[in-house]
């Protein structure tokens, strides 16, 4: 049997460092890069072009990226962000990108016309966010409701535990692990944003929600085993012993479940195309952090918390 609880300090230190690092990354990202929010959140520029009907969208993307790099040589602050290319009908191309000034617009259009003289700008407008601040507010409120429901539900599900334990602490510990997972994943993406200009887009939000669901699921399974073992607690067994037993009993399950889900997500990461790559990366990372936290964080926190009271 692996004695996880003997190394609690190590796990807490690792997580604490990761958590602190993530918070720093998040703060830097917000302060310096406005979180690298994507066009969907910030609004941007939409330019429509008349194009020949056999146009290769990837080539157009390449031209735009090249032009972006050229512009950045003069002014490193300008970025086109995630470029969205959509064809309408045979001969119209809609390009959505980060909001750019008129000068940059002219340069971008000129670069495309230079690439193919049949490409002509039809219209350019600034567009508002598709994911408005109201939706984000609603979502944050919804998340608080979700967290409250999880705490209450776990308190209810774990109501039959011995008197000395507080059922609300199960929910709270699960939430703690969840926040740990979400913050660290966000921190990683902020780091990617700082070095590679990876953007925070609506898909990333969805990935965070997925990680949230995954983390809670993982934690509850361990807690459930813990609850079951509490019923057969021997006098010589401490809570730490019970936690270790429960973790060992669920270890194979935790690893197998995570590994199998990880396999599916990795396949999509490798083969699913560029558009979902970062989305899948977020999920992969979330699964690792989620599994780690359900084993090394959630139960130790629960035990440490209960010990203080006893």
């Amino acid at each position: 049997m692996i004695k996880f609880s003997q190394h609690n300090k190590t796990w807490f230190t690792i997580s604490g460092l990761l958590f602190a690092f993530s918070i720093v990354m998040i703060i830097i990202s917000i302060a310096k890069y406005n979180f690298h929010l994507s066009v969907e959140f910030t609004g941007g520029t939409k330019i429509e072009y008349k194009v020949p009907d056999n146009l290769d969208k990837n080539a157009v993307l390449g031209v735009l990226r090249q032009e972006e790099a050229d512009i950045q040589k003069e002014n490193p602050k300008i970025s086109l962000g995630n470029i969205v290319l959509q064809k309408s009908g045979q001969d119209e191309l809609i390009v959505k990108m980060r909001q750019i000034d008129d000068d940059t617009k002219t340069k971008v259009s000129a670069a495309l016309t230079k690439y193919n003289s049949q490409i002509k700008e039809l219209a350019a407008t600034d567009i508002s966010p598709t994911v408005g601040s109201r939706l984000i507010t609603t979502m944050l409120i919804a998340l608080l409701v979700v967290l409250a429901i999880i705490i209450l539900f776990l308190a209810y599900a774990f109501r039959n535990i011995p008197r000395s334990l507080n059922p609300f602490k199960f929910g709270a510990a699960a939430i703690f692990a969840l926040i740990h997972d979400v913050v660290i994943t966000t921190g990683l993406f902020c780091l990617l944003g700082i070095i590679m200009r990876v953007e925070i887009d609506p898909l990333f939000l969805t990935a965070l929600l997925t990680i949230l669901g995954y983390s809670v699921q993982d934690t509850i399974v361990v807690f459930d085993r813990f609850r079951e073992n509490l019923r057969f607690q021997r006098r010589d067994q401490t809570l730490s012993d019970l936690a270790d037993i429960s973790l060992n009993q669920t270890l194979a399950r935790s690893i197998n479940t995570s590994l199998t889900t990880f396999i599916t997500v990795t396949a999509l990461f490798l083969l699913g195309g560029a558009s979902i790559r970062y989305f899948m990366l977020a999920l992969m990372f979330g699964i690792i952090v989620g599994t780690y936290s359900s084993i090394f964080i959630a139960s130790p926190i629960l035990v440490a918390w209960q010990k203080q009271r006893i």
Partner: protein
Amino acid sequence: MKKLFWQISGLIILIAAAAAISLPIAADSTLPKISKLWRPLHLGWDLQGGAEITYRADLKKVSPRDRDSVMSGIVGVLEKRINALGVAESNIYKSGDNIVIELPGVADTEEAKARIGKVVELEFKEQGTTYSAEKLKEINQKNKELKDNAQQALGKALEPGADFERVKQEFSDNFSESQFTELDSLPYSQDIKDKLLTMEVGEIYPSVVDNFDQYEVVKILDKKKEQKEETLPEEVKAQHILIAYQESERADPTVTRSKEEAQKRAEEVLQKTKSGADWNSLAKEYTDEAAGKETGGDLGWFKKGQMTKNFEDAVFAMDPGKISDSVVETEFGYHIIKLNEKKAESTEPKTVTSLKLDIIKMEKVPEVPKDGWIETGLSGKQFKKAQVQFDEYGNPQVGINFNTEGAELFAAITKRNLKKPVAIFLDNGLLSAPTVQSEITDGNAVITGDFDYKQASDLARDLNTGAIPAPIYEIASRKVEAALGANSFQRGIQAGLIGLLVLMIYVAIYYRLPGLLADISLLSYALLAIALFKLINVNMSLAGIAGFILSIGMAIDANVLIFERLKEELQAERPLAQAIEIAFQRSWPSIRESNLSTIFTCIVLFFVGGIIRGFAVTLLTGILCSMFAAMIITHVLLKVFLVHSSLGKKPSLYNINRRKPNQQEND
């Protein structure tokens, strides 16, 4: 055993039906469809593209400083309406002065448009034919502002290098397609038409055109001249002598003779003309038409339709140079007619100029109530809630609860209109005008109309999502491809299938025979979930796929939980059949609790709407299917292949190390 047989049969039928509905997954797959039950999977905007609809808001009644907030208000209402449409995930954003909606797929765009673009302006009006002086002043002020706007538009359009279409986008109220119209048929005064005739293509009329109910800035888009055959109708030139009597129409007061006397006198005059007397002197002597005495009763040239019926019939039947055979009676008296000349119907070549105009239109606010109803100030803005209810005959109607302000207004309106009708207008159309029976002070009103249930509930829903603060109209609609490229969904499916295959191999190797059975259960789960996605018309976007992947993870988790338990129970030396039952019993709380917490999360996220809804729907559907697959399908499979077959007697098939000491003594 018998029970198990029915369970297996039921499951086989269910899974076969799920496969028939779900395979192949993508509509454009090269694989043949399994059966007629097959349904397409609706893909989201990000995977499939769809319709991009551009709306323009009519902000002429909104003061410039409120425009931003009104635009945001419109976007907010549209968002709510799109959410109310169901599972379709759409994007909505402002693009310059326009509002763009991206609707996934193209299936029921028309229906969606009809729902989204509705103004839903509910107004209560009372009878009246004139506006109060105060209201008139307000209207005049608005129209003056409107004219200033038109002047401004003209100024912008006349700037060198100006783009007329842009100016039109910015100012115009509506965007009808321009067509060639003959100059004569244009609704302008002759002065304007004359000026237009001299202008070249591309020129803009140099001042704002005040065209009855709207101001216009007019540009000539195209001009063509056509030679047309103009048809000239039959015409006659005639003279007449009129003998009136006292009662005949327009008779001179000096005429006192009776009708009989008049007829007799007319017959005499006719005889005299026939006997060759000079027409002009007869006319001078006898006619009762004052003007005709000097001209010999000459009527000049006239066409059909200009004279009274009897007279016309008689004169057009005559031959030129002849005098009528008998006297002709009309309401003016008795006539003797002489037809001098007659022109048959003919055609004549004529040059007709047609113009194609591009017009910036700004509708004026009418100065008199158009239909006898005037505003009361009470509208859909002052209510709390609308709901469908039924009258005593079971006909659906829509009940409205006003807020405090609305309730006070409604009480005042019903008080001053007692026993008079009060009209309810929806989107400027009269819906109904019930007569007020008594003053209503409780702030409740009922909208009756010729509704069926769907119309009533649609109206209630539209009222609840709110009125769009300013009218909007569609200015463009087009199909747009997915941003990710047409093959990305296929590619995603392939990647997902490869992932699933690797996962299944892993499960089979690790758990051996139970693992293989879990693989079957997993495949069944996937078929069930996809069939359900198709049946409930989920719009599968990337977020939806994320939800599905997460539910795959949870489906595996349930199986893994059960098998780990099974291992433990077998290590505790329990008989196989009993171990299976206990494994299911013991793992159920874990499965239930972990999935229930996710189900609650999904329900909350569903109500957030927007991009999150698809995720919530697929995850919820996936979880329900995965619980079914693990607790029922896996269970039945284990019973069939382990308990009721000789396979169960080979422990090597389920990777159990029975020598391993059991560390935990349960029970």
